[in-house]
């Protein structure tokens, strides 16, 4: 499966997800096979065993059964440990605008999924720790573990990472420039990475310190996103949108501070 992705000819096309043509199609086509002239090889309409190297979502919209097969998502997880670590390190520096060239032809969804999941757990856990430490200074309060933090953090983080890039994608499509949804998800996912060490520092129960930390983290993250978006949409004048993305990310940082580390 590795060599099929090694020789992608279209990596110079920014914003395109390269089409992967599997070497030879299995001759067994089930009864759901679509015989469309545009598609080669013809797609199986049914379930494909994981591990087969078909790319379901490269086919035209008639064959949507690829949504339910694992093998159609495998190209987005085609990263090694060192690649992921490298991308994570580069997401901390807000002043380099080269994230999209770093992704290249291989945007990955592994990191956005697990960064957001980690952030959900850390916010809920450390939020509880922070409230415990605050209550310790005021012994009249009875501290209770609040499990609703999990619900809130899951809602805020997952909602933000899913909806904002999707909305940006549709906005870009509407405004005429071509974007790639996967890259936008990848970018927003990596931008959340800096909140993980920030939330570790936010446990300290000193209010001024917390505000300083969250302002720094928020501006770093927002700067990272907006700078990379500006280089991504080089030819088009979408300054308004870039600025609004910056403000939105900053607003997320403030929200996280207020909800979990009050």
């Amino acid at each position, binding site marked *: 499966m590795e060599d099929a992705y090694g020789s992608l000819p279209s990596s110079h096309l920014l914003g395109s997800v390269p089409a992967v043509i599997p070497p030879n199609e299995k001759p067994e086509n089930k009864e759901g096979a679509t015989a469309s002239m545009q598609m080669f090889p013809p797609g199986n309409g049914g379930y494909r065993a994981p591990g087969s190297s078909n790319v379901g979502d490269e086919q035209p919209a008639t064959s949507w059964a690829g949504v339910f097969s694992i093998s159609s998502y495998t190209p987005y997880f085609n990263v090694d440990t060192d690649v*992921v670590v490298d991308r994570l390190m580069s997401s901390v520096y807000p002043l380099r605008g080269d994230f999209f060239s770093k992704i290249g032809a291989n945007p990955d969804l592994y990191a956005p999924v697990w960064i957001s999941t980690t952030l959900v757990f850390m916010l809920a856990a450390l939020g509880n720790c922070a409230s415990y430490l605050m209550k310790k200074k005021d012994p009249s309060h009875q501290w209770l573990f609040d499990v609703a933090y999990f619900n809130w953090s899951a809602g805020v983080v997952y909602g933000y990472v899913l909806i904002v890039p999707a909305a940006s994608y549709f906005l870009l499509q509407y405004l005429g420039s071509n974007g790639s949804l996967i890259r936008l998800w990848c970018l927003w996912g990596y931008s959340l990475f800096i909140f993980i060490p920030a939330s570790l520092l936010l446990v300290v129960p000193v209010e001024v310190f917390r505000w300083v930390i969250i302002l720094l983290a928020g501006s770093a993250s927002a700067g990272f996103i907006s700078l990379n978006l500006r280089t991504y949409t080089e030819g088009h004048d979408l300054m308004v949108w870039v600025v609004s993305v910056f403000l939105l990310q900053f607003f997320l940082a403030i929200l996280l501070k207020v909800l979990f580390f009050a």
Partner: protein
Amino acid sequence: MPYGDTIPLHASSQSDIDEIENLINASIQSGPATVHPTRPLSPPRASIPVSSPFVASEISPQAYQKPPLVPPGVPPPASAAHRQNVGGGVGFGASPNTLTEPVWDTVKRDLSRIISNLKLVVFPNPNREDPGKALRDWDLWGPFFFIIFLGLTLSWSASVKKSEVFAVAFAVLAAGAVILTLNVLLLGGHIIFFQSLSLLGYCLFPLDAGAVICMLKNNAIIKLVVVSITLVWSSWAAYPFISAAVGPRRKALALYPVFLMYISVGFLIIAID
């Protein structure tokens, strides 16, 4: 040919009819719960000759074949009480007798399978280096029991919002097991979906034990120590299976979510008081 009301039957046909009647009466007596598994198809039986007796002579050799419609060993009526079985004990390719065995046999067999799987996965044994050999006889009863038990223990220990705690714990563990398996599959690893679910469920056993201890002893330091030990134990149990499933350059990517899930469950155990 004048046919009367009563058609003269061949001698052997009468005995066949008697046998069928006996069989029907026996099955009515033993209750509707009898499910006879499929028997091999009986060879063509002699049909009741309704035409003239002239044809009887041709079919008489056939008619002497005893139709094997009587199942070998009609279950004695005494076992009718055991017929309503807990059907969960039937594994793949089980013999038909598992439907008619006593409930205690089924439960005992499942329990012994759970214990043997537990010993394979969680405790040190020579098979750990070869994950394909261990946990070959996976099942989902063990993981189910451990997840529910952990949820219940956490819910008992919580002082407020008990049902929400149970819901969060159960959702995290169940969805977490599925998502972790999907993660390994998406990274290009080779595992069987349900075998991995089963494995991740069994690796919860140390955390279950830790949760029980923390429920009994509500001291923060003890909880911290106990949860750390059981966390390390769980991770050690899960490590060989997961790391053997993916390529060597992606091991950390596959293992990190497992640690994340166990750490978050460990945190839940510590923090709930």
